[in-house]
């Protein structure tokens, strides 16, 4: 391959393959949106709904959601570039927000609906921000 036409043809082929490969990486953005949406349900339920019935519902539901998301992730045929580092960052930020929300929501802001709403948004934020970044073109 030595001439301009060959090079342009090769570059077009590369662009087509790279564009097609990008669609295979899109699953992580969907995963993050599902995770963020789940926080909007889980956090208010944990903070505002008390008693044995609440525990009996929220804990298995959370376990089910985490398992479903994990199975979804494990079955994907493509592992996006830098996924481990990005995912650990998201989970680390979420864990910090979730622990702070529970600590404050179960002590200083007991049964506070505005706090539960703010905590839900704070817990959803790491995944939502990462999902928005995922949707940006490379």
């Amino acid at each position, binding site marked *: *391959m030595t001439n*301009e036409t060959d090079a342009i043809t090769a*570059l077009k*082929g590369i662009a087509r393959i790279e564009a097609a*490969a*990008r669609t295979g990486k899109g699953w992580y953005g969907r995963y993050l949106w599902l995770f963020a949406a789940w926080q909007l349900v889980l956090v208010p339920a944990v903070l505002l709904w008390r008693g044995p019935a609440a525990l009996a519902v929220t804990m298995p539901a959370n376990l089910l959601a985490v398992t479903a998301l994990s199975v979804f992730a494990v079955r994907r045929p493509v592992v996006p570039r830098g996924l481990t580092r990005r995912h650990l960052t998201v989970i680390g930020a979420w864990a910090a927000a979730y622990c702070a929300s529970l600590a404050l929501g179960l002590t200083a802001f007991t049964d506070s609906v505005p706090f539960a709403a703010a905590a839900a948004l704070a817990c959803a934020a790491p995944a939502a921000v990462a999902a928005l970044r995922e949707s940006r073109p490379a």
Partner: protein
Amino acid sequence: MTTRPAPTAGHPRHELEPLLNSAVRLSVVAALAGVDKAEFAYIRDLVEITDSALSKQATRLEEAGWLGIEKGQAGRRPRTWLYLTDAGRTAYTRHLTALRAIAGPLH
């Protein structure tokens, strides 16, 4: 790892990687360039080739030290993953840069 003659200064074609002059191999590498790893079947479908053709090209790239093959299991299902090594990524980037230089400033 493949060895190639030292490039002579001048035309960017000297920077092209001979192993990537095959359209299929170039497609396989391009498909893997943006990901950490991908399943064999996914790359096969993306590049639109048969299992045996991909297997042959993957072996060539593996012999050159550009591609890694990892076998695993998801439940009962065996899975084969393909990934580019650092040497493979470097070679692909160099090849791409040379192609762009040959194609001219508009590409």
